[in-house]
């Protein structure tokens, strides 16, 4: 196989059987540099896959014995007793609290972030949009716990009032009921959802701004020339162009919300072990991450740590599934995004 970009002796020298030819996008020339780089890239790829696989195998091998001894249904039980010879534990509550708080965070953060990004890129005058863009990027680099603390202090004093309002208006929905009396507590899923939304807002905004700013001028002018108003232009050109980017940004934010530990640990009040199940977000609980962090001191026997590792595995899978769904959504529109 000779190359079009210039044949070198190494192209021919070592290929008597016709395999070992450069593959990939076939732009490779088979020269030393290409082969070195190709080999390094391949090696790195294999290493990553191997690491993930080994991690999963390790976690599974730790979790399975504990799961085997589990007297309760791991997926549907709300109990968490990992001690003794008859452990009973399940993740139902952890899963619910994790998902509910993150969903609340995304419901607030994504629309607000998108609106701010739209304002900066489409509405604000140049003298404002330039510094604002830089500022948002800076804010996104600050550790989110800083916003968590700020949010907790600013909204903390008003949260029960807000919860009362939501409960009065939407109390007929099971999510906003008050059967546990949680409306007057500030350690609720609702509150941590709000705090999480503040924590992920900068990253969602920064990434959305980035993609909106890249909307090709030709698309925007195409819409304007058809007689679109500013908002109609945004709907026909900017939002469709930015959609995959906004989805990616949301997934990144969601990943942070799902895995956030310290803020949840500080704010959310945990429930007694035999608390009745409730769908209300005016209720305490623990997320996967906060549960594990809260009980780090308990990892003293393979059975106990195995139970927590099993919970961690579910978080792993949850994040994986969420990202896979996002991929599918983005891929499905790919034919329309040249």
């Amino acid at each position, binding site marked *: 196989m000779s190359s079009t970009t210039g044949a070198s002796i190494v192209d021919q020298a070592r290929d008597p059987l016709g395999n070992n030819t450069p593959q990939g996008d076939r732009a490779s020339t088979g020269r030393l540099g290409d082969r070195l780089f190709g080999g390094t890239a391949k090696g790195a790829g294999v290493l990553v896959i191997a690491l993930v696989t080994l991690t999963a195998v390790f976690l599974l091998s730790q979790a399975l014995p504990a799961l085997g001894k589990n007297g309760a249904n791991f997926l549907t039980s709300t109990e968490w007793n990992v001690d003794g010879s008859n452990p009973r534990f399940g993740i139902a509550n952890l899963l619910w609290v994790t998902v509910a708080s993150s969903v609340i965070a995304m419901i607030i953060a994504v629309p607000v972030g998108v609106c701010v990004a739209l304002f900066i890129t489409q509405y604000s005058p140049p003298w404002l949009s330039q510094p604002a863009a830089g500022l948002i990027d800076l804010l996104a680099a600050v550790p989110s716990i800083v916003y968590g603390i700020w949010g907790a202090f600013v909204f903390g004093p008003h949260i029960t009032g807000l919860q009362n309002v939501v409960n009065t208006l939407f109390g007929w929905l099971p999510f906003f009921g008050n059967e546990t009396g949680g409306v007057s507590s500030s350690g609720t899923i609702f509150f941590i959802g709000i705090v999480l939304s503040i924590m992920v807002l900068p990253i969602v905004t920064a990434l959305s701004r980035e993609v909106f700013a890249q909307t090709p001028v*030709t698309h925007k002018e*195409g*819409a304007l020339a*058809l*007689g679109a108003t500013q908002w109609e232009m945004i709907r*026909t050109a900017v939002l469709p162009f930015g959609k995959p980017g906004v989805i990616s940004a949301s997934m990144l934010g969601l990943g942070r919300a799902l895995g956030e530990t310290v803020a949840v640990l500080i704010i959310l009040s945990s429930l007694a072990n035999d608390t009745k199940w409730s769908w209300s977000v005016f209720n305490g609980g623990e997320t996967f991450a906060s549960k594990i962090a809260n009980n780090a001191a308990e990892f003293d026997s393979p059975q106990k740590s195995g139970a927590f590792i099993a919970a961690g595995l579910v978080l792993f899978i949850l994040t994986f599934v969420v990202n896979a769904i996002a991929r599918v959504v983005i891929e499905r529109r790919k*034919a329309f995004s040249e």
Partner: protein
Amino acid sequence: MAKRIDVKDLNVFYGSFKAIEDVSMTVEPRSVTAFIGPSGCGKSTLLRTLNRMHEVIPGGRVEGSVRLDDADIYGSDVDPVAVRRTVGMVFQRPNPFPTMSIGDNVAAGLRLNGMKDKKILAEKIEASLRSANLWNEVKDRLSKPGAGLSGGQQQRLCIARAIAVAPQVLLMDEPCSALDPISTLAIEDLIGELKSTYTIVIVTHNMQQAARVSDRTGFFNLAATGKPGRLIEMDDTQKMFSNPTERTTEDYISGRFG
């Protein structure tokens, strides 16, 4: 349908830079007017002032008047959005909306106007694509993305999109410069057909094209780089190409510069 355009004492600016100076001209309805001239003399800029697209660019500013059948489109109570619905535009590079299907691209302007009726939309999509000589090529794949079409087909799709909203004037900025000769011919034929309905203004780099498609030709030039562009001469295309009044016009047309 078609309207006359009267440009009077037009000066166009990008910030403090004056790109066009003292242009006055009349464009007759149901005719094709070509703008020719060397690169950078302000042809695109002038074209974009005719549907108020110029002011979309930060710092873009216009002095003077542009009248559509006696209505000043720069009047203080005129909405630029309304002007753009009356004066359609086709750009140099085909720019179908990438996230929309072929059919939705054509319907985009109609939808902006609030048209919802599926049946009427389908009729207008077909009629516009037929007028743009594209119907036979795309009728089986209206729901496929427009980006899958060839460059020439994409440009005709953009023309279909522009005429779907029934504008009075159609502006085209070098619509064939990114296309192969066969697609170019298809578009030139199309321009010939469309002029019975619309007032058409076309910017072109290609002198033969101007001679082939236009009824009148305006020649623009600038005294030196950094100086504003001016309209040197405007006349019937035949006269411009056989016996222009100005010396520079003749030099440009005979290929001595530009």
